[in-house]
């Protein structure tokens, strides 16, 4: 479903801030794979997702989604294949538009937007049903501005928007990191439900090692802009947080895992 071939990305080349964030990263995902991604700060996790999403062009290498070479495709064109949820709850929704209008925008991802009405009555009923799945009571607030929602509600809504039109690939970049533990658990639960229901191919970045082990069928660890550990199936199920920490220590040359990774 996703094939990343030897991609390289250097930010601010030729300046003092030069930083090679991806160095020959290669990764292949099968249809229905739910891959959790871990790694220290600056390991290149977000950069990998941004490369797939086309936020900027990679310096070298190729990216295929479902067999289509998207390497040269602009961000808004690639969006047709992708569902994305970001770390910051502000990023994924349009704050001064209604809940239903946000959903309507998401439903039309990948379609030509013309002079047809922006949201139809049938759609509204559909959204009401879908919002119920989130169990946040949003189905009764369809015409509320999204800016009035809490961070957790916005993330849940963004998740629904990302999957409203079934994406070929779901990209989650620490989408629960800005939420309190209880809300984070709820949003993760919703994630599992939605991914499971449609058997979505998913890349989920997390700083929580436990979550990385519990969720998904495959786990990858990144360091220095490439994948240093890739585990799936039963082997992944048997993993312990301690194993991952040991792996991480080994990779980073003895330097201890950072605080955020230690959590739980």
């Amino acid at each position, binding site marked *: 479903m996703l094939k990343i071939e030897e991609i390289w990305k250097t930010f601010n080349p030729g300046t003092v801030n030069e930083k090679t964030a991806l160095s020959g990263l290669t990764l292949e995902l099968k249809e229905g794979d739910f891959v959790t991604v871990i790694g220290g700060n600056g390991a290149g996790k977000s950069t990998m997702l941004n490369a797939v999403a086309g936020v900027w062009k990679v310096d070298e290498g190729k990216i295929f989604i479902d067999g289509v070479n998207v390497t040269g495709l602009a961000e808004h064109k690639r969006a047709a294949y992708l569902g*994305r949820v970001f770390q910051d709850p502000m990023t994924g929704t349009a704050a001064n538009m209604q809940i239903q209008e946000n959903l309507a925008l998401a439903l*039309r991802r990948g379609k030509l937007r013309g002079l047809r*009405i*922006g*949201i139809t009555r049938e759609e509204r009923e559909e959204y009401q049903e879908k919002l119920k799945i989130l169990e946040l009571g949003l189905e009764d607030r369809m015409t509320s501005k999204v800016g009035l929602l809490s*961070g957790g509600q916005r993330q849940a809504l963004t998740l629904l928007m990302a999957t409203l039109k079934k994406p070929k690939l779901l990209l989650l970049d620490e989408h629960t990191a800005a939420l309190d533990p209880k809300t984070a658990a709820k949003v993760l639960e919703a994630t599992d439900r939605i991914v499971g229901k449609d058997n979505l191919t998913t890349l989920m970045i997390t700083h929580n090692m436990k979550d990385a082990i519990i969720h998904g069928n495959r786990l990858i660890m990144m360091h220095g802009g490439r994948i240093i550990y890739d585990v799936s199936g039963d082997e992944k199920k048997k993993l312990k947080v301690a194993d991952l920490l040991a792996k991480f220590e080994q990779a980073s040359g003895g330097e201890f895992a950072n605080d955020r990774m230690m959590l739980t």
Partner: protein
Amino acid sequence: MEIVKLFNALPGACAQGFIWGIMAIGVYITYKVLDLADLTVDGTMATGGAVCILMMLNGHSVFVALLVAFLAGMLAGLVTGILHTAMGIPAILAGILTQLGLYSINLRIMEGKANQAISVDKYNLLISLRWVKGVPFYKNAIFTAVLFIMVIIAILYWFFGTELGCSIRATGSNPHMSRAQGINTNLCKIIGLMLSNGIVALSSGLCAQYQGFSDVNAGRGAIVIGLAAVIIGQVVFGKIRGNFAFKLLAVSFGAVIYYMVLQVVLWLGLESNDLKLFSAIIVAVFLAIPYLKGKYFAKPVKKGGASRA
């Protein structure tokens, strides 16, 4: 300071206010919907009039003239849009560049003259300052201007409810999210700028007819008047919850209030040469108020911000 003098001047100010209300609606599209400060309008506010008057002087009907004025405005918006999106020039600077270039183009349109007069007696104008009082209502300048506003608001209300209109609103609200949802934000910005400048040029065309001449300086400071109208509309009618059409209506009434206030300060003895300074101060104060309010009279934040679940 006879009060009669003021009353005599008010209907004219009202008509002019509504004509500029159309212009303010154009500014609203860029400033509020797209979240862009577009200074092109200082040029298009002269271009529309120049095109309209010259077309009419050359024997075209007023409707054709206005249509071409609208298209000329759109073209100016397209130039700013391309400078901004495809060439990566900041929106404000892109607008200034187009506006500056338009000055020469406007002079060319007006055959090298700084202004071009058109006689209301010889040509079939739609609107004129002679028709403010003592004419049948359908000929009245205020009626004509309001009619234009109603039609424009109706069309915009429809347009911003369409798929394309919604993606333009989304682009202004959150470009990052818009691209993630497959919206071509650059295209949306260009369309918004074109629409806005088209409407401004239309207003300019009406304004030139109203005054009986087009003027290369007609647009100087137009953005400030447009912003004043948007802000006044927001301050005066902001408490009333209304839909998009209502907000546009509020903006056009903001322009009327602006011209009424100008009339009053003129009547109070301010010189017309000082009006621009007066306008600039008013707009600066109103733009600063929300910021200062937030800074010195901060209430607990209710929405937005770095909300955590």
